[in-house]
């Protein structure tokens, strides 16, 4: 037993993947929590960009949506939605896209559209694409934050909402996608990175208390583990304190807003 939860470890691990001074296009939920934690700890100069058109947002708490007032009030600039996609994302100006997923496959392709059945008559209708397809295509690199389960980590996604490496090496170039693609998948058990030859996602790091076997049994493809598997450092006291303070302030904000 340790004094932090697996979601806290995941958020800390994702925050560590961001470097100070980077520009980061942030999806809502897990990615937003991690990006704001990074800014509150080792990366105060991290530039947060949300699809609502807020560039350089500096919220002191975790926004519930990508368009909360605090993002506009603290931004360096607020631009229109056509502008954020056309001028800022599309030309490849943004270092890292930070996304989540409902389903992800071994080549890092993401599905947030439909699960099961067919498109016209799905078993589960998910929210859909949002900004993700172009974030996945045009950011210099992409990091995906998603909880590990057999349901989410599938051999092949039911619907390609956002492209990772397609069906393998050469696909991104053939499709004209300008960014390098997903560099890491960060989960609540460990970290997966693409194999340099096959681009298939491989387990490269695990958290304290997790095992490679446990990750494999929560993955829907035959997951390979790197021979030099990294034992990822548990959250430091400072990281945990900063994350919990962010969450506490966000809870208080939600209540006082209503």
């Amino acid at each position, binding site marked *: 037993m340790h004094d932090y939860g697996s979601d806290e470890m995941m958020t800390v691990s994702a925050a560590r993947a961001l470097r100070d001074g980077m520009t980061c296009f942030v999806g*809502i*939920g897990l990615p937003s929590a991690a990006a704001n934690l990074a800014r509150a700890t080792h990366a105060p100069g991290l530039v947060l960009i949300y*699809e*609502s*058109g*807020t560039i350089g947002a500096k919220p002191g708490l975790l*926004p*519930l*949506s*990508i*368009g*909360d*007032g605090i*993002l*506009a*009030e603290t931004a360096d600039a*607020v631009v*229109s*939605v*056509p502008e954020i*996609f*056309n001028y800022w*994302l*599309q030309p490849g100006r943004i270092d890292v896209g930070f996304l989540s997923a409902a389903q992800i496959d071994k080549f890092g392709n993401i599905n947030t*559209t439909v699960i099961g059945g067919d*498109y016209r008559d*799905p*078993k*589960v*209708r*998910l*929210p*859909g*694409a*949002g*900004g*993700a*397809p*172009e974030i996945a*295509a*045009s950011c210099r690199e992409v990091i995906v934050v998603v909880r590990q389960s057999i349901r989410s980590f599938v051999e092949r996604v039911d*619907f*390609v*909402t*956002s*492209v990772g490496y*397609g069906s393998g090496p050469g*696909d*991104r170039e053939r*499709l*004209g*996608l*300008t960014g390098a693609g997903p560099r890491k998948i960060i989960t609540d058990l460990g970290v997966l990175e693409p194999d340099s030859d096959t681009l298939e996602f491989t387990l490269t790091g695990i958290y304290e208390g997790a095992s490679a076997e446990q990750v494999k049994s929560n993955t829907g493809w035959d997951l390979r583990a790197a021979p030099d598997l990294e034992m990822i450092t548990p959250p430091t006291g400072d990281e945990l304190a900063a994350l919990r303070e962010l969450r506490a302030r966000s809870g208080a904000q*939600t*209540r006082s*807003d*209503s």
Partner: protein
Amino acid sequence: MAQIVSLAEAVRLAVHDGDMVAMEGFTHLIPFAAGHEVIRQGRRDLTLVRMTPDLIYDQLIGAGCVRKLVFSWGGNPGVGSLHRFRDAVEHGWPAPLELEEHSHAGMANRYVAGASGLPFAVLRGYNGTSLPSAGSIRPIACPFTGETLTAVSALRPDVAIIHAQRADLAGNVQLWGITGVQKEAILSAERAVVTVEEIVDALDPRPDAVVLPAWTVSYVSVVPDGAHPSYTLGYSVRDNDYYSQWDAISRDRGRFTEWLDSLHHE
């Protein structure tokens, strides 16, 4: 030139059965009061266009006003699903819902094309995704380099509806903060309805504001807090608890029907 009328009058004059209607506002300035008035007036067979359907379209879909949805992200932000939207897609309740689905970049560019009077817009997008099955997305060769890009057809709604901070007595409209695609939605539409927090004698210039001149707007209505549970920067804050609580109401047909009854009796 904009006419200043009541909200009921604006909806009666501007929104007709079978229309293509775009109610825009990206998280901020969502025209909820106008959406509720469309429900009260019992409009049917609407094609609703919106990047993020949000609770406002979940409510219109559940109320049976909608035949087709054109959109790019249909969730409850930070909370989860839009259950009325899901029920319509997954079970055809209260009626089947036709979908035309895009990415945000695609939708934003479709509005830009509509506002620009062009038949389509060009972007780098959709390549390799499963989305291009929609008829409004086609590959196009760059006439200069031959590179394959993506064309998306223009959006030209019959009516666009937005909420803004304020207007002046002549009907000039001013909005600021996150302004999303509202300007493009208004300029791409045949008719335009704007609800505002207040009408002032004259608009003080604001360097960060979008101004829609009165001659681009059909009807202006004063509706204080007309974006609730969304918000109006400078006037109100987002009611995040309402968004959280909607989940349980929307999840259950009975509870939703009770909500709908109470809306009719407001």
